[in-house]
């Protein structure tokens, strides 16, 4: 009995000591002047409040669950040192409200504003990271929330620049409402699963806005990808769900709105692809449902470049693309049905909203261009219009079976603008 009481007392004291988590304040005139000192003092559950000011620190590291809060956005200047600013291996921690700048560049080391490894249950939010190599490197982390961070880099070439969010072997992460620009890849994900990426803006990065590989069961929604060097590339992943994203203004000779490579069993729904060189480049992807997407004024709306099976395209809008569809092998059992094509010139006598004549999305010129890309210099010449027209009247080269048998007369959920 007494022994158990002792145990109880020990546990009770432990809980009380934990409950009485203390607060440590850091400022230039305080007793504790650096964040690093504060983290050394802090115990499990403590809160560190950092007042406004300039802190020239790197390698702030801790192993216990503490909460670091920046008041009025204190600045941490890493002075381009070869060390990460925060280097964390802890559970149940949070960091918020910092301005971090000048994170050093290295060709051999991974240097980040936040280097988090083997951690779980954490929150990093409301930070602004300026002129950084990597902003976030997350390795083997679980149940983390990264939100409202702003990341600005000034990447010039791929070799000497890092990614905004770099996730490696993570699980159940949430990356929300962040803004990333001027990095190599905005968001890079490898071997990470069950994560959500939403409401992020990835703009003007020199390589990809979003780039993931071998990352299954993830969800991407309400993100915006704009003006990235090569658009968005997603590869070798299963069961991903992409919806309500906007991919636009990725113009360039090697630029894609969305590049899909070996993606299986995905849902791509309600996205907008506007003014990209290639809306979606589809390479070896099977069992994907494309629904309610808008393809507006792209060079190619869809470009198939490899064996793709059982993809279903329905209720999409294809509006004013230079080419709606191009492919270089057989289109197998991919299905196009009930889409709206702005090029469709058929009629609807019974007024049921479905065109009475099937639509063939492959033009003769896109067939020719696929065989000899050089012929693209004839784009918009009268000759091309004539051969396209004659092919439309009586298809000879373009495949008979590739058609939308129920083309819609009116666009689906027309965009407001």
């Amino acid at each position: 009995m007494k022994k158990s009481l002792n145990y109880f007392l020990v546990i009770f004291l432990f809980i009380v000591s934990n409950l009485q988590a203390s607060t440590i304040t850091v400022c230039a005139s305080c007793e504790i002047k650096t964040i690093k000192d504060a983290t050394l003092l802090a115990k499990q559950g403590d809160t560190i409040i950092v007042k406004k000011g300039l802190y020239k620190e790197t390698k702030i590291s801790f192993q216990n669950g503490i909460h670091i809060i920046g008041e009025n956005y204190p600045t941490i200047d890493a002075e381009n040192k070869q060390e990460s600013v925060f280097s964390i291996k802890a559970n149940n921690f949070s960091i918020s409200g910092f301005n971090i700048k000048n994170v050093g560049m290295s060709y051999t080391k991974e240097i980040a504003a936040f280097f988090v490894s083997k951690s779980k249950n954490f929150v990093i939010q409301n930070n602004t990271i300026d002129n950084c190599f990597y902003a976030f490197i997350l390795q083997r982390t679980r149940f983390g929330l990264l939100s409202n961070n702003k990341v600005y880099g000034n990447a010039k070439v791929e070799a000497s620049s890092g990614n905004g969010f770099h996730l490696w072997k993570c699980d159940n992460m949430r990356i929300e409402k962040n803004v990333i620009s001027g990095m190599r890849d905005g968001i890079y994900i490898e071997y990470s699963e069950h994560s959500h990426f939403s409401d992020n803006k990835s703009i003007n990065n020199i390589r990809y806005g979003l780039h993931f590989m071998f990352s299954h069961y993830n969800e991407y929604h309400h993100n915006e990808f704009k003006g990235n060097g090569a658009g968005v590339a997603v590869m070798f992943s299963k069961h991903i769900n992409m919806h309500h994203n906007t991919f636009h203004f990725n113009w360039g000779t090697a630029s894609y709105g969305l590049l899909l490579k070996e993606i299986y069993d995905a849902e791509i729904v309600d996205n907008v692809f506007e003014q990209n060189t290639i809306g979606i480049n589809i390479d070896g992807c099977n069992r994907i449902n494309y629904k309610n997407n808008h393809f507006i004024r792209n060079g190619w709306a869809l470009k198939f470049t490899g064996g793709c099976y059982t993809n279903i395209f329905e209720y999409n809008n294809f509006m004013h693309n230079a080419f709606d569809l191009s492919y270089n092998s057989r289109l197998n059992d991919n299905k196009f049905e009930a889409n709206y094509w702005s090029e469709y010139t058929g009629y609807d006598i019974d007024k049921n909203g479905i065109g009475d004549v099937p639509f063939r999305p492959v033009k003769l010129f896109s067939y020719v261009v696929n065989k000899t890309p050089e012929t693209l210099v004839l784009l918009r010449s009268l000759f091309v219009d004539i051969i396209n027209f004659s092919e439309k009247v009586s298809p000879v080269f373009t495949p008979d079976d590739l058609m939308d048998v129920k083309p819609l007369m009116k666009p689906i959920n027309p965009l407001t603008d």
Partner: protein
Amino acid sequence: MLKILKYSIVDLLRSRWSYVYFAFYLLLGYVLLFLNNDINKAVITLMNIIIVLTPLIGTIFGVMYYYNSKEFTELLLAQPIKRSTIFIGQYLGISLSLTLSLLLGLGIPFVVYGLFKSAAIFDFSLLILVGAFLNFIFVALAFNIALSNENKIKGFGFAILMWLFLAVIYDGIFMISLMMFNEYPLDKFSLFATMLNPIDLSRILILLKLDISALLGYTGAVFKDFFGTNLGAILSLLVLCFWVAIPLLRINMKLKKKDF
């Protein structure tokens, strides 16, 4: 020469056709801008029209004018005026009046819709410049054909064929040769082939200024490297000038030998 130029312009202005032409462009400009208020998009649509129609109208106008004013020309030839003065005067008269119709017909609606405030002003100026060049080139070519053929029907036939060749058939041959020689590096060839046809050259010049040029891929990059530089721009303008000058020289040669 100026007097003859003046006479032929006045003569053209008195005829209905230049007004019809002017009204056509005016209407086209207004309708385009009415259908979508975006000047940028209207410029793209205009490109297609200018590249096909200006050569056609230039050709037909040139041939028609030559045959119609043949009697007046013969009267003039009886006067102590140099042959080249008469014909160059007429040529300039017709080309200038066509260019004027193009400039005013498209200029007025675009200015009304706020061209000067828009970023498209450079594209638009390029478009008009190219249109003017095409006018001058195709009127010169038409005069050539008309001078060589006494027979009206034959002259018209050849003129239309010439237009058809440069606007359509040339591209067909170009495309087929690109497909046939697929295995060879073709970028130099396509640059060269484009230069040889004023319609293709104009099309590429305008196309490269529009954002659609990103579509052109590798060949497009080669083109952009070439036409994007000052050298390329000067060279392509020079080629267009050659396209005006060479037919004119031929007119001159022909005139010296021709028995009217």
